[in-house]
């Protein structure tokens, strides 16, 4: 069974994958795998830009999103035509371009917005995993081939099992069984800069304690007065900052739900 494994930490956002996908599928007819993709507007692989934090504590990462080639794909039962969407023995999910009648049910059914509609040919279209190439002897699809940092990997599930074990899937709560696994998907952070307002100097070595539900994390401010709590689960946190000779500062109910938190410059 084929699987994608994508290492977010080494993706530099070059967009080669998104462009290579278009190079393979725009104006090229790979029936019975896929008919040509329109010149613009479809992203069978879409690179999504994510920004966390606020200036000056800002972090970015890119996530390549294509058809997840789910083991329990919602698109298949949504389709009213028998075998118009099917799963291959190697795990790839294909929309048969000749059988599709353009009802768009699968476009609505896909929770990953990975299926696009072609207004000109009246069919639903998406990533095929470049099955036409694999069947022709290629080891990997064009997006993976074009990745200069090898952030995108493709292969047998058994060969990639170590990466899969460390990775996550998108929206696992949907239980669609995605075959695209992401490594090093960043989590949220809480950060700030601690300073002495009288001296107008940063404070090094201030003790910062972040707590939630009985668990405690501790860091000290670095040589720039900065503290970082990274890789945080989404939740509500309390923060305490102590330094010798200063009164303790506390922040209550810091939310990392859907966002990272930069507390900015903090006077003690």
């Amino acid at each position: 069974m084929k699987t994608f494994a994508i290492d977010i930490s080494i993706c530099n956002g070059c967009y080669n994958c998104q462009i290579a996908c278009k190079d393979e599928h725009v104006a090229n007819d790979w029936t019975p795998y896929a008919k040509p993709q329109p010149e613009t507007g479809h992203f069978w692989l879409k690179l999504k830009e994510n920004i966390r934090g606020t200036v000056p504590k800002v972090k970015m990462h890119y996530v390549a999103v294509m058809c997840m080639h789910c083991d329990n794909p919602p698109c298949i039962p949504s389709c009213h035509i028998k075998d118009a969407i099917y799963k291959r023995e190697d795990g790839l999910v294909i929309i048969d371009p000749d059988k599709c009648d353009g009802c768009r049910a699968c476009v609505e059914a896909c929770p990953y917005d990975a299926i696009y509609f072609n207004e000109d040919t009246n069919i639903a279209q998406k990533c095929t995993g470049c099955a036409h190439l694999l069947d022709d002897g290629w080891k990997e699809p064009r997006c993976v081939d074009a990745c200069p940092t090898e952030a995108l990997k493709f292969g047998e599930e058994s060969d990639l099992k170590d990466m899969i074990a460390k990775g996550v899937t998108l929206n696992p709560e949907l239980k669609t069984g995605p075959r695209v696994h992401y490594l090093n998907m960043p989590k949220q952070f809480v950060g700030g800069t601690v300073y002495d307002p009288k001296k107008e100097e940063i404070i090094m070595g201030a003790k910062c304690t972040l707590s939630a539900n009985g668990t405690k994390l501790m860091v000290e401010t670095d040589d720039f007065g900065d503290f970082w709590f990274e890789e945080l689960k989404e939740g509500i946190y309390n923060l305490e900052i102590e330094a010798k000779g200063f009164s303790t500062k506390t922040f209550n109910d810091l939310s990392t739900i859907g966002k990272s938190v930069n507390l900015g410059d903090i006077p003690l």
Partner: protein
Amino acid sequence: MQYAMIHLEEKGVDPIGESKSDYEAVGEIAKKLGLYEQYTGGKTVDEWIKHGYETSDVDDMVSWEQLKEKGYYVVPTRKDWEEDPAGMIAFYNDPDKNPLSTPSGKIEFYSERLAKNFPDDYERTPVPQWIEKSESHDESFSSERAKKYPLLIMTNHGRWRIHAQCDDIPWTREIPTCKVKGEDGYMYEPCWLNPKTAAERGIKDGDIVRVFNERGSVLCGARVWERLMAQVAYVDHGARTDWIIPGKLDRGGAINLISPEMITSKNCTGQATTGYLVEVEKVTMAQMKSWRDQYPEAFEREYNPDSGLCFDAWVEKGGN
């Protein structure tokens, strides 16, 4: 060799009207100056192209006939390239035996040549230094001008273009840092703004904005995000011009149209175009409509959002 590929550039269209290539245009001036023979070196254009090939260091890898037939040649990475010596290693190992081309033969932080030849040039001093304000340039926050134009704009080389080349590629224009689709469907050049700077001006991500100073106005599409600090704006240079009012208002996003006009200093013809003062404001659909009504011909040029202005937008007749 400093490149990975060579290619023969074919003409895109036949010359229209009296238009001439840059080479021919300069040649006409050389004729008037009586320097035409020196200018051409006795070679035709085709002979110059072949000369380029002969001095390209790939002439032993691909024949002239093969190159002409294919149109390009991708230079393979040299075997054992990892053993190539580092660029200035000879100078590093023995600077006395391998001097640089400076008067001292060393890397010079202080230029004696500048000090001797241009002692009164306070804009290009022998040691590079910050100059807050000068006879040619007044583009800092401390300037009186900053009261009217309070943002410092940064104009980089575009990530998706080479200057104005490649501004028409449909697949890059779909990338959020390449173009911004305006409410009117036009693909605007992005103007990055910090959310604070944008909020002060009532600007939201995706809005059409006017970036301006006393030198003119350029329309862009706002990209509001934390990838830029406050009090700063950022527009790549090189978007293709699409005038609404020639000399005053451009819709294409060619930000160099409002950059400082003066050169680096009176003795140095460098461009000082990468940082200067501007203001940014939201453009309403009512404002766009009034421009449309006033300058209808500017909005009638043939345009395709996927690739921008078409050939026929500027050229009235001719071509192939």
